[in-house]
C-alpha cells in the first residue's frame, strides 16, 4: 500500500514530467510527429557540440580541482592527530550551503580580472591571472562549491579502512606516498568515486553558476536560454535536457560499475579506522599551511559575501571603501518573507524526503515486495535529472492542471516548489535512510515481533527510533541543500510572496543599490542553514550516545 503510494508520487512528480520533456525532444516542431530531426539538428550545430564539449570539460576539470581541495583535508584530518580536525571538517562542508550564484558574485569581486587578488598581483608583480575568465571561472566556483561531496565521502571511506590494512603494509616495508598510493587510496577509492561522480553530475547539470558568470556556451545554460528566450516549445531545450539526463545517468552508471564488488570498508572485521599519527613539527607546519590555504580558498566566497554585505562601495578596489550596517537594515525591512518561505519549503521538502526515504529503505531492505528495487532506482534517478529539466517538466505538465483550492494553475502554486525541492533532494535523504536501516539488526525487530508487536508497531517503536540518527542526517542534507537551490525554483516561482531565499538574493542582486542587501540576505541564509545543520548534528550525536547499547547488540549480531 505504502509502496504503491510512493510509486505513484514518484511517477507523477519525477517520471512523468521527465517523460514529457523527453517526448517533446522527439517531436517534430512543425508537425508534432515523432522524429529524430531535433537530435540531428543538435549534433550538426557546432555551437551545441562546443557546448557539450565545454560542459564535459568543465565538469571533468572541476572534479580534478575538487579532488585537489578534498584529498589533503580528508587525509590530514583522518590520518593525523591534528588539532582542529572537527573544525576543519565542518568548515569544509560550509561551501555546500551557499547558493552557487552568490558565490559567483563574490568570487568575481575577489578573483576577477579586476578583483582584489588581481589588483594586488598587478601592483606587486605586474601580472594578471585569468582565474575567472570564461570557463575558468565556472570551474573554480563549481569545484569550490561542490568539493565537500568528495570530502564527505572520502573522509568516511578513509575512516572505514581497517587499521590493520595499513599496518600490515608498513610491516612489509611500505611507507609514505607509496603506502598511500598502493594501499590507502585504492581502499578509499569507492568513497572517492561516489563523491567524484556526484560532483561531475552536479557541475554538468548546473545552471546558475555559468549563467551568473555570463558563460553561455554550456549545455544547461543553452537549455535555459532556449526555453526562456525562444519559448517553451522550442525543441532544442528539450533535446539538451534529454542529453543532460542521459549523460548524468551514464555517469552514475559508470561510477556504480567501477564500484561494483569494491565495497571494501565492510569487508574486514576487527580493527578500528586508520591509526592517527603524530606529526613532526615541520610536517605540522607544512600540513597547516596546506589546510589553511585550501580553507581560505574554499571559504573565499563566504568572505567575499561578508565583505560585500558590510561594505559601502566596492568598486575596482582591493577592499570596500567603508563599512556599514545599512544593507542589513535594508534587507531586514523587506526580506522576512523570503526567510520564512525558505524555512517552510526546505523544511517541508526535507520532511517529505525522510518520510519517503525511510519508507523506501524499509520496503527495499525489509520486505519482499516485487519490484521494490525499482523504487530505489527511481528515487536515486532524480540525481540525474537537472533542476532545469524538473522546472521545465513541471511547467509543461502542471500548467493546465487546476485544483479547486488553488488560486491559479497548479504549476504556479507554491507547493509545487516544495515538491520539486523534495524530489530533487530525495536521493540524499534516501541514501542516509538506507545506511541507517542497514545498521539496525533484524534481530531487534524480530525480538519485538516475538513479544507480540505487529509489523507497524515494530516499525514505529523499534526500527524508526533506531534509525533516528540516519534519518536526521538525511533531513539535514536535504534541508541544507534545498534551502539554497535556485535552478528548479527560478522557473517555478510565480509570485514574489512565494519566493524562497535564493530567489530573493537573485532579485536583490539585480539592482545597483540591492547588491549589498542581497549579500546581507546571503549571509543570513548561510548563517541560518549552518546553525540548523550544527544543531541537528548535536542532536544526532546525543542520540548516538543514548543508543550506545544498541550499537553493541548490532556488533554482536
Amino acid at each position, binding site marked *: 500500500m505504502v509502496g504503491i503510494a510512493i510509486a505513484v508520487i514518484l511517477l507523477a512528480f519525477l517520471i512523468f514530467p521527465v517523460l514529457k520533456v523527453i517526448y517533446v525532444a522527439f517531436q517534430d*516542431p*512543425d*508537425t*508534432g510527429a515523432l522524429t529524430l*530531426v*531535433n537530435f540531428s*539538428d*543538435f549534433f*550538426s*550545430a*557546432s*555551437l551545441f557540440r562546443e557546448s557539450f564539449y565545454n560542459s564535459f570539460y568543465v565538469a571533468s576539470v572541476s572534479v580534478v580541482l575538487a579532488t585537489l581541495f578534498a584529498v589533503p583535508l580528508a587525509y590530514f584530518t583522518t590520518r593525523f592527530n591534528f588539532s582542529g580536525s572537527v573544525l576543519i571538517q565542518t568548515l569544509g562542508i560550509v561551501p555546500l550551503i551557499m547558493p552557487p550564484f552568490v558565490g559567483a558574485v563574490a568570487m*568575481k*569581486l575577489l578573483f*576577477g*580580472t*579586476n*578583483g582584489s587578488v588581481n589588483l594586488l598581483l598587478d601592483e606587486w608583480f605586474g601580472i594578471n591571472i585569468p582565474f575567472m575568465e*570564461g570557463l575558468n571561472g565556472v570551474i573554480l566556483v563549481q569545484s569550490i562549491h561542490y568539493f565537500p561531496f568528495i570530502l564527505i565521502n572520502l573522509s568516511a571511506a578513509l575512516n572505514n579502512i581497517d587499521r590493520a590494512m595499513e599496518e600490515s603494509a608498513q610491516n612489509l616495508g611500505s611507507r609514505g606516498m607509496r603506502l598511500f598510493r598502493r594501499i590507502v587510496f585504492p581502499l578509499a577509492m569507492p568513497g572517492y568515486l561516489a563523491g567524484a561522480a556526484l560532483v561531475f553530475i552536479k557541475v554538468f547539470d548546473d545552471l546558475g553558476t555559468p*549563467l*551568473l558568470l*555570463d558563460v*553561455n556556451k554550456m549545455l544547461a*545554460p543553452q537549455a535555459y*536560454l532556449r*526555453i*526562456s*528566450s*525562444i*519559448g*517553451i*516549445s*522550442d*525543441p*532544442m531545450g528539450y533535446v539538451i535536457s534529454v542529453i543532460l539526463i542521459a549523460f548524468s545517468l551514464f555517469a552514475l552508471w559508470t561510477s556504480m560499475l567501477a564500484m561494483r564488488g569494491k565495497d571494501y570498508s565492510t569487508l574486514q572485521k576487527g580493527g578500528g579506522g586508520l591509526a592517527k599519527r603524530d606529526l613532526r613539527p615541520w610536517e605540522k607546519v607544512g600540513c597547516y599551511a596546506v589546510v589553511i590555504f585550501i580553507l581560505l580558498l574554499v571559504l573565499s566566497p563566504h568572505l567575499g559575501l561578508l565583505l560585500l554585505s558590510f561594505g*559601502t*562601495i566596492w*568598486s*575596482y*578596489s582591493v577592499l570596500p571603501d567603508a563599512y556599514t550596517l545599512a544593507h542589513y537594515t535594508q534587507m531586514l525591512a*523587506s526580506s522576512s518573507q523570503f526567510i520564512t518561505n525558505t524555512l517552510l519549503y526546505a523544511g517541508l521538502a526535507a520532511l517529505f524526503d525522510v518520510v519517503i526515504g525511510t519508507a523506501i529503505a524499509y520496503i527495499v531492505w525489509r520486505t519482499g515486495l516485487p519490484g521494490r528495487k525499482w523504487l530505489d532506482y527511481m528515487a536515486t534517478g532524480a540525481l540525474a535529472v537537472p533542476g532545469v529539466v524538473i522546472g521545465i517538466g513541471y511547467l509543461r505538465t502542471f*500548467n493546465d492542471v487546476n485544483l479547486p*483550492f488553488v*488560486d*491559479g*494553475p497548479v504549476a*504556479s502554486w*507554491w507547493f509545487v516548489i516544495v515538491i520539486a525541492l523534495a524530489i530533487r533532494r530525495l536521493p540524499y535523504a534516501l541514501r542516509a535512510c538506507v545506511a541507517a536501516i542497514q545498521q539496525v539488526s533484524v534481530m531487534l525487530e524480530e525480538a519485538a515481533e516475538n513479544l507480540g508487536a505487529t509489523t507497524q508497531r515494530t516499525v514505529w517503536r523499534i526500527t524508526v527510533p533506531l534509525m533516528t540518527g540516519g534519518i536526521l542526517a538525511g533531513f539535514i542534507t536535504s534541508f541544507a541543500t534545498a534551502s539554497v537551490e535556485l535552478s528548479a525554483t527560478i522557473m517555478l516561482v510565480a*509570485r*514574489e*510572496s512565494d519566493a524562497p531565499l535564493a530567489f530573493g538574493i537573485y*532579485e*536583490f*542582486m*539585480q*539592482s*545597483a*543599490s*540591492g*547588491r549589498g542587501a542581497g549579500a546581507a540576505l546571503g549571509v543570513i541564509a548561510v548563517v541560518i542553514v549552518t546553525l540548523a545543520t550544527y544543531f541537528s548534528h548535536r542532536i544526532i550525536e546525543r542520540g548516538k550516545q543514548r543508543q550506545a547499547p544498541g550499537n553493541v547488540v548490532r556488533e554482536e549480531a
Partner: protein
Amino acid sequence: MIGHLKNVLGATLVSAAAVLLATPAIAADGKLIVVTSYPPDTTTAFKAAFEKKYPGVKVEMLKKKTSAGIKYLQETSGNNTSDMFWASAPDAFEVLKGDDLLVKYKVKVTGIPEKVGSFPINDPEGYYKGFAASGYGIMWNTRYLKAKKLPVPKEWADLKKPVYFGHVGMSAPSRSGTTHLTVETVLQGEGWAKGWAEWKAIAGNFKTVTERSFGVPDGVNSGQFGIGVVIDFFGLSSKASGFPVDFVYPTVTTLVPANIAIVKNAPNQHNAEAFIEFLLSKEGQELLLNPKIRRLPVNPATYAKAPSDFPNPFKDSSIGSRVKFNLKLSKNRYNVVNSLFDVMITYRIDELRAATKAIQEAEAAMAGKSNAAAAKLIADARAAVNATPITEAEAGEEGYNKIFKKRRKKASVKVTGRQAEVEGKWDDMVKANYARAKELAEKAKSML
C-alpha cells in the same frame, strides 16, 4: 503558510465579490499581480506608495526578464493569473499585443504630451501606455578609466576604438528587452548592413556579453569591465547609489517610453486601472525622480521638481530626437534580430574578439605606411567580419520569421525549416568568416 493560503482564498473571494457587485468606481480591495522586468528599487517604491493610497489592495510584483515575461504571459494565457505587464521595451508590448494578450484602456489623467523625443508616448491603438522615458547610453567606471588611463567615451563610434579592446560590456538582445531596443535603434539609424558592422566593431571590444541586462551596470559598478552599454536608469541609479560611475547619452540614441499595460482576462482589472492612473498622476510621476529609480517622467511639469543635472528631454532636443524609431519594423523581425545577435556575437564572442584583435593590430602596424596589398587584406578581413548570413529583406520576410516563432497551436501552419537548423547554418558561416578574417589580418600584419 496556512495563513498565506487563507490570504489567497480570502483575496479571491473578496475580488469575486467586488466583480459581482460591479462597483463602477475603483476597487478598494483585493490584489494586483504585476509582471515586471523592473528592479526591486523601482517596484518596491511604487508598490509601497500604491498600497498606501489604496490600503485594501495587496500588490504582488512578479519579476521576470522582459523576454521571459512575454513567454510567461504566453504560456499561462489559457489560465491567466496576471493583471499587468510593466516593462520598458515597447516592442515587447507589441509582441503581446500581436498575440492578443492585452486589453485597451483609456487614461483619465491629463497633461501627458503625445511624444517624447521622436517617439509617441502611448500606443496609438491604446493597448499600452508610456509612464516614463528611457534612453540608451554609455556608462563607465571612473576609477577603472583612470587606472587604465582610458579616455571617456562619448559616442557609440568611440566604443569601436582599439583603445577600448576588452573593456566594454553589453547584454544580449535576446535576454534584455532594453538591449534589443538599443540594437534595433542602431540597425534602423545606420541601416542593416552598416548597423551590424557597427555592432560587430563595438562587440569586438567586448569583455563579455552578460546574461542579464543588469549584468552590465553590475560589471561596471564592480570594475569587472570599465564601460557598459546601458539604459539610462541603470547608469543614473548606480551613480545615485554611490558607485564611482558616470553616464552619458550619445548623440544618436532613441528615447523610448517605458510602458505598462493591462493583461487580457486580468483577475483584478479595476486595481490594474487604478495602478495606471496612479503611475501617471503627479505623485506617481514624482516618484520617478527618486535617485534609486531615476527615470525620465512623461509629464513635463514634473521636471520642475527634478535636480538641476537631471536631463529633460522636453527641453533638451539633443536627447533622443535623431532616430525615428519604426516600431512595426522592429516587431516584425524581433526574433530574427535576437537570434542573429546571439549567433554572430554572443556565442562567438571569443572568435570575434580574436579577429578584431588581429585587425586592430594590423591597422596599428599599417599606420603611416602605405602598402596596397596589406590594405586590401585588412579591408577583406573587415568585410569577412561584417558579413551577415541574411539580408535585411530576408530578415523582414514573414515566412522567414515564422521559423522563429514557435507558437505551434495548429498543426496546419506550415513552416519550412527549423530554428536550430537555420541557426546552425548561420553559425557555420560566421565561424568560418571570423577565422578567415583573423588569418587575413595576421597576414597583412606580417607584410608590414
